[in-house]
């Protein structure tokens, strides 16, 4: 087994981002675009070369390229870019926008750059931004980014390039909302939306580095170089192709034999196997997010904190590391959704979070039963292969604790609509996919009104801390509040995290200039190929 290099890579990324000449490492800040502090990983391949085509293998297919669609659309950063960006330290910085500022977190001023045009030639101006935000607000479109725009009270175009937002309440992460991977910083051409109507989803027009050529679902998305890109000299590539390769093993072979030039990988096995190949580069970082079991706070037995503690106590993290993460111990055993690499991480949660202790679990269960409770429950999972593998392992945890558990598998749609949406379950497996920043994911996961608070967890202290975190003007106060949320959650345990979702971008040796978030959202303007 090759030595695992997660931390090394993370360190490398940080080094590269800081722009300081690394000791021994050839990492250096990107030549282009460093005025925005764009974290581009570099190697010693020399100066970027323009031209060529790259193929990016992704693990799933999108449902389209309308920014209001609820799906991970790998092509969106290429087609649309983003008004704001996270830099590598997790700070929000302007990107396609000139600036975004607020003094009180209630009124925000967004300034746009001069001369940024959509692919159809129309300008990306204040009206365009407002048009897009309004779409997210439209209930008929049921946008996935609704939570990001919900705080908006009103907005107006001060001039062609300035938008003033007035919020209902102080809301600190508002700028970050324009930097999120699936956030509201993705601006589509209003002209095109009006022109294509229902078909816009299939004919996206943005202002990003690549223009849409064709999309054949389950086959490929073809993009071509935007000759009128707002960043001079970019993009380098003439063509960029996205190909969904849903099968893990095939995806792995596709990168091994050069069918694709870079891939997005999501299982520990394939990432480790890629690391064994000297010709491949594995780019990874520990993003926020977590895989775990939702323990329904509304329904017995997990309405009782003792039972939640018992559940966490039976999780054998070493085994989870072996079975679920191919032996990668540092992926297993996530505590809450915030990664230790995050600037707001609260290290004290490590002492609060219950350690594996089957005896303790048995005691807690006995205690609960003695009080007249029925500790048995049904554990629901979607019937996908990786979930089945998890269930096989978890079954042994339950048996070791002598816990009477029924395991039930459901069709993925039924799982989502009949379990998560209705809240009619006791324990269900679920993942919070990788994310950068804290809002809205943390809010949604833990706030009483949170959209992804499937545990129906409701705690006034947590709600208050969340509110403080999002409204504080002082970043220190906000960080402290985020940390308090983590501590409270580690005490109350609504969501029994057992690991971080693995993900990495793997590239061939001829691929350079990878610019990505920690959650592996790829911004392809700086990509270039030495072949």
């Amino acid at each position: 087994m090759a030595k695992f290099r997660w931390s090394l890579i993370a360190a490398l990324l940080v080094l590269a981002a800081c722009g300081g000449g690394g000791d021994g490492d050839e990492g250096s800040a990107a030549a282009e675009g460093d005025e925005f502090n764009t974290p581009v990983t570099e190697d010693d391949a020399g100066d970027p070369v323009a031209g060529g085509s790259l193929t990016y293998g992704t693990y799933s297919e999108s449902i389209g390229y309308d920014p209001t669609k609820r799906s991970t659309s790998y092509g969106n950063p290429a087609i649309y870019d983003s008004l704001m960006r996270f830099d590598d330290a997790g700070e929000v910085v302007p990107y396609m926008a000139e600036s975004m500022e607020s003094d009180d977190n209630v009124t925000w001023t967004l300034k746009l750059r001069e001369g940024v045009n959509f692919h159809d030639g129309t300008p990306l101006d204040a009206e365009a931004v407002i048009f897009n935000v309004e779409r997210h607000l439209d209930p008929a479109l049921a946008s996935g980014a609704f939570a990001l725009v919900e705080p908006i009270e009103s907005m107006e175009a001060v001039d062609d390039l300035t938008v003033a937002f007035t919020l209902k309440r102080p809301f600190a992460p508002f700028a970050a909302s324009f930097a999120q991977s699936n956030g509201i910083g993705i601006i589509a051409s209003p002209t095109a939306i009006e022109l294509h109507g229902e078909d816009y989803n299939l004919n996206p027009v943005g202002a990003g580095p690549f223009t849409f050529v064709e999309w054949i679902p389950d086959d490929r998305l073809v993009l071509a170089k935007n000759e009128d890109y707002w960043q001079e000299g970019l993009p380098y590539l003439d063509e960029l192709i996205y190909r969904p390769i849903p099968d893990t093993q095939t995806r792995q072979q596709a990168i091994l034999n050069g069918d694709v030039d870079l891939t997005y990988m999501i299982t520990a096995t394939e990432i480790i196997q890629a690391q064994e190949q000297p010709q491949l580069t594995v780019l990874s970082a520990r993003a926020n997010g977590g895989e775990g079991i939702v323990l329904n706070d509304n329904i017995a037995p997990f309405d009782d904190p003792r039972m939640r503690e018992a559940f966490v106590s039976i999780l054998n993290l070493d085994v989870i590391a072996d079975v679920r993460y191919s032996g990668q111990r540092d992926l297993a055993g996530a505590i809450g959704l915030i990664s230790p690499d995050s600037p707001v991480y609260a290290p004290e949660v490590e002492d609060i979070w219950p350690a594996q202790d089957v005896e303790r679990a048995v005691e807690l269960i006995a205690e609960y039963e003695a009080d007249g409770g029925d500790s048995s429950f049904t554990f629901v999972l979607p019937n996908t292969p990786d979930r089945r593998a998890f269930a096989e392992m978890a079954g042994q945890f339950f048996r070791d604790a002598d816990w009477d558990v029924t395991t039930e598998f459901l069709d993925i749609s039924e799982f989502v609509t009949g379990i998560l949406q209705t809240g009619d379950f006791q324990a269900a497996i679920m993942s919070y996919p990788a994310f950068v920043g804290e809002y809205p994911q943390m809010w949604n996961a833990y706030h009483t009104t949170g959209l992804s608070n499937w545990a129906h967890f409701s705690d006034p202290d947590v709600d208050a801390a969340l509110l403080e975190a999002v409204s504080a003007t002082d970043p220190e106060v906000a960080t402290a509040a985020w940390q308090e949320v983590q501590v409270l959650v580690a005490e109350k345990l609504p969501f029994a995290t057992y690991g971080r979702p693995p993900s990495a971008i793997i590239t061939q040796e001829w691929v350079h200039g990878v610019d990505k978030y920690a959650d592996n959202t790829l911004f392809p303007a700086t990509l270039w190929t030495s072949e």
Partner: protein
Amino acid sequence: MAEDQDLATQPAVEMDTVAPDVTTASEEHLPGGSPAGAVSTGVLQEDPTQPKARRKKLAIAYWCAIVWVVLVVGSAALAPFLPLPDPIESDFSAIAKPPSSSHIFGTDEVGRDLLSRSIFGARISLAVGLASVAIGLVVGGAFGLMAGYLRGRIEKVIMTATDSLLALPALILLLTIAAVLGQSLRNIILGLAVLTVPTFVRLTRASCLVISQREFVTASRSYGSGPIRVMLREILPNVFPPIAAYCFIIIGVVIVAEGSLSFLGLGVTPPTASWGGMIAGGRISLTHTPHIAMVPSAVMFVTVLAFNVIGERLRKRFDVRESSL
């Protein structure tokens, strides 16, 4: 006439009575009275069979096959009483270990003994394979016979129903059955049976169409035999052998199909072991720990092969057409 029938039962004569596609049932009705036909031995096969040494080898294969099937079926039946590790119990200190002295077949990705799982898996897989093929054969065969022999309105109805079933992609049916009725062994057998029925209907009907044109069928009908008698006594014995050959293959296919269901998340619910499910589970790590998928594949391969060796032999024994080979 009476004498001829006596002759027909004489073993020595049998080799001489080989009107090619005419079984004993039809001989009685052959016009002309005499069952005398032609020796079909080596009609075309210049060397139709094996020299002695090879035949002996075949006999060894046959007995090996029987031993294997007895072993598999026997151990599956007696599995709970055998000194085996619990097929569900994980040994987390031995995850995905290749075969060794403590685990002869190795362990799977959650540290369960593959030998034990293969034996317990045989219970499920054999049940799935045999039951769904049996249902498919009986139901499909019956409808196919009716459609091919009775023709007319009955055929139209049966074929329309069959076509509708076949035109519906298998997965839709299985997904719906799983989602509506729940994911259980019974429903998996049911689902796979529903998939095999139309194939059997079509196959039986096709053969039946041909056989129905044969003279002995007309003859039997002219003797006043009712349709049921004709179907059972005249047509069925002729239609059966090729269909039976297909059966033995399809059992293997169905056992694997259960694995494909697992691959799509519709198979037997964990932690219950089934060969197909084990193969599907082992696929994830095929490059690193191939034994997890290969052990059940090998067990299944030998079992399917053994079934076919036995099936072939039985067919030779009971099928007049091949008895002289």
